[in-house]
C-alpha cells in the first residue's frame, strides 16, 4: 500500500504545505523572539549569551512600562467601544438597504481597506494638526482662539484607529445579520413590538456573536497597531508597539524589545481567551 492511499496519512500530507509555511513564517519568529527576550544586554557588551529574567524584571518593576501598557489597552478599548457604537447601527442600516444601495455602501465601507494605513493616517494628520484643516476652519469661523490639541493625543489615535478598524466590525456584524431569519423581525412586529423594541430585543441579541467576534478582531488589532500610533502619537504618546520599535531600532536593546513584545502577545491572548470564556459561559446555549 502506498503512502498516498493510506487514509491515516492523507490529512497530514494534504495540510503539510500549509503547516510548513506556518511553522517557518509564524512559529519560528515567535520562538526566536521569545528566546531573545531571555538574553541579557549591556550597553557596552551588546547581547550576551547568558539567559535570565532580567528584561522581564526591568519591565515589571518600572511604572513607565505599566503606563504604556495601560495606555495601549485603553486606546484599544476605546477604539473597540467606538467601533461597536458606530459599526452596529451602520451594519444594520446597510442590511436594511435595497440591493443597489447595499453594494454601494459596502464598497464605501470596504474601500478604505484598499488604501495603505500609513496614507490614511497621514490624512488624519492633515486634518487633526495644530495648523490642520479642522483647526484652521474653526479658527477662521472664530469659534476657537487657540488651536485644539488633537495631534499627539490618545484621543486622536482612537479616532484614526476607529476609522481603520470599523470595516472589520461592520463585516462581522453584517455576517451575523445575514444569518438571521428576516421573518423573526416580522414575527416580533406581529406580536406587538415597535421598531425600537424589535431592534433591541430581537435584532441586537442575534448580532451578539458578530459583535463579539468583531470586538476581538478590533481589540487585538488596535492593541498591536503600529503605524497609526506612530504617526499620530509620535514620541509623546507612546504605545507598546512603538516602544518595541524604539527599543529595537533606537536603543538597540533587542532583548528588552523582545520581552515587551512577548508581554504584549501574552496579555492580548489572555484578554481574548478570558473574553471568549466569559461570553461562552453567558450565552453558551443560545449561541450554538
Amino acid at each position: 500500500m502506498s503512502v498516498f492511499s493510506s487514509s491515516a496519512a492523507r490529512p497530514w500530507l494534504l495540510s503539510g504545505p500549509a503547516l510548513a509555511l506556518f511553522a517557518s513564517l509564524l512559529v519560528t519568529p515567535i520562538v526566536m523572539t521569545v528566546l531573545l527576550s531571555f538574553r541579557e544586554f549591556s550597553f557596552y557588551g551588546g547581547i550576551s549569551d547568558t539567559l535570565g529574567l532580567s528584561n522581564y524584571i526591568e519591565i515589571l518593576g518600572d511604572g513607565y512600562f505599566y503606563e504604556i501598557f495601560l495606555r495601549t489597552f485603553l486606546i484599544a478599548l476605546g477604539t473597540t467601544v467606538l467601533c461597536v457604537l458606530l459599526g452596529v447601527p451602520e451594519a444594520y442600516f446597510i442590511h436594511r438597504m435595497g440591493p443597489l444601495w447595499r453594494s454601494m455602501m459596502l464598497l464605501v465601507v470596504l474601500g478604505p481597506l484598499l488604501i495603505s494605513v500609513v496614507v490614511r493616517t497621514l490624512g488624519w494628520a492633515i486634518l487633526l494638526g495644530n495648523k490642520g484643516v479642522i483647526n484652521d476652519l474653526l479658527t477662521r469661523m472664530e469659534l476657537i482662539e487657540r488651536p485644539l490639541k488633537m495631534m499627539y493625543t490618545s484621543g486622536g489615535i482612537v479616532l484614526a484607529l476607529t476609522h481603520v478598524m470599523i470595516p472589520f466590525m461592520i463585516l462581522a456584524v453584517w455576517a451575523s445579520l445575514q444569518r438571521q431569519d428576516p421573518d423573526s423581525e416580522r414575527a416580533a412586529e406581529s406580536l406587538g413590538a415597535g421598531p425600537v423594541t424589535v431592534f433591541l430585543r430581537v435584532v441586537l441579541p442575534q448580532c451578539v456573536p458578530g459583535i463579539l467576534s468583531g470586538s476581538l478582531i478590533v481589540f487585538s488589532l488596535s492593541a498591536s497597531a503600529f503605524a497609526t500610533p506612530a504617526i499620530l502619537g509620535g514620541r509623546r504618546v507612546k504605545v507598546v508597539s512603538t516602544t518595541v520599535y524604539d527599543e529595537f531600532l533606537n536603543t538597540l536593546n533587542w532583548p528588552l524589545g523582545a520581552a515587551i513584545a512577548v508581554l504584549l502577545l501574552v496579555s492580548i491572548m489572555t484578554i481574548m481567551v478570558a473574553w471568549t470564556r466569559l461570553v461562552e459561559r453567558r450565552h453558551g446555549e443560545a449561541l450554538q
Partner: protein
Amino acid sequence: MSFLDLRSLTKRFGDISAVEDFSLSVAKGEFVSLLGPSGCGKTTTLQMIAGFINPTSGSMILNGKNLAAIPARARGLGIVFQTYALFPHMTVAENVGFGLEMRKVPKAERKRRVAEALDLVHLSHLTDRHPQAMSGGQRQRVALGRALVIQPELLLLDEPLSNLDAKLRDEMRLELRRIHKEAGVTTLLVTHDQDEAMALSDRVAVMRQGRLEQVDTPFEAYEGPRSTFISGFLGKTNTLRGDLLETTESGSRFRREGLILDGPVAHHIPGPVEVCLRPERIDLVEADEALVSGIVSERIFLGNQWLFRVDTPLGELMICRRNRGRREAEPGETVHLSWKPEHLRILPVEVQG
C-alpha cells in the same frame, strides 16, 4: 355577518399584478385554506392581512375593524411563519411569552398563560430549551404556541408544514386540527399542498395567477371543480378535450377522437369543451362491458394503491386502483375500462392567459 371580510383586494408591483380583485368572507371559528401553486399570490394575500405589505386597493375588515388603518404590530393577529421565525436567543417560554410581554401582561398571568399555551401544543416539558436544540416539529409547536398565546382574533399560517418531513407532516396535520378545535380560533392557512388544504380546512380557496378561482368545502371543490385547473390541482385528473354534441334533460353526449361518450347533464353550449375524469372513478371490467380498451404503458406501486397509465383511443388515461393484494395488470397487457356517465365533469375550454 362574516368575521373576516376581504373585498376586491388587489396588489400590484409596478405593472405586475400579484393579487387581483380578491374577495373572501370567513366566518368566526372557520378554518380556510388559500391553496395554489407558487406565485399565485396566496402569500401576498396573507402578508396584506398581516400588515407586512400594503394593498394597492380593496378593503380588509376583521370583526368590524378596518385592518388597513391599523399597523401590523397593533393588529393582534397570530402568525406562524414558514421558517417558524423563532427568536433563537430566547428560551421556549421567553419566545411564547414575548407577545404577552409586549402587551404588558403582569408577570404572574403571563406565566400562567405561557404554561397554558405550551400545554395546548404539548411542549410543557421543554419550557427552558432554546430553539436550536429542538427538532423541526417541536419548533413548529413553539411557533404555534407563540402565535396562539396572545389569543388572536385571526391565526395566519404560512406554509407551516412545508419544512417538515413527510411522516412528521402527517402527524402535525392532525395536531393542527386538534389545536384549531381546542383553541377555536379563526384560521387562514396558506399552502401549495392540496392534501394539507383538504385535510385541514372547512373551506378551500383555490388561487391562480393572483385571482380566486373557487371557494368551496374540500369535498365540493374536489367533486365539482369549476375549471380544469382546479380539477388538476385538487387531486389527479384525466383531462380530455373534445366536442359537446348535445345536451338533453337526461344527459349529454361528447365526442373525442371519433368515439362518442355519454356524459352527465350539462348546461354548456355544444362545441369544444374539456372533460375531467378522476383516475379512481375508472373501473377495470370485462371486454364486453368496456367503454374503451387500452394497453398499460406504465404501472406504479404506491403501497395502498396502484397507478396505471393506459394508452387508449381516447388518449392516455391515468387509472388508480386500491391495492387489494391481488395481481394487477402488467405493462403491455390490454385492459378494458368503464365509468359511469355522471363521473365525467364537463368544463369550458381553458383560455390560456
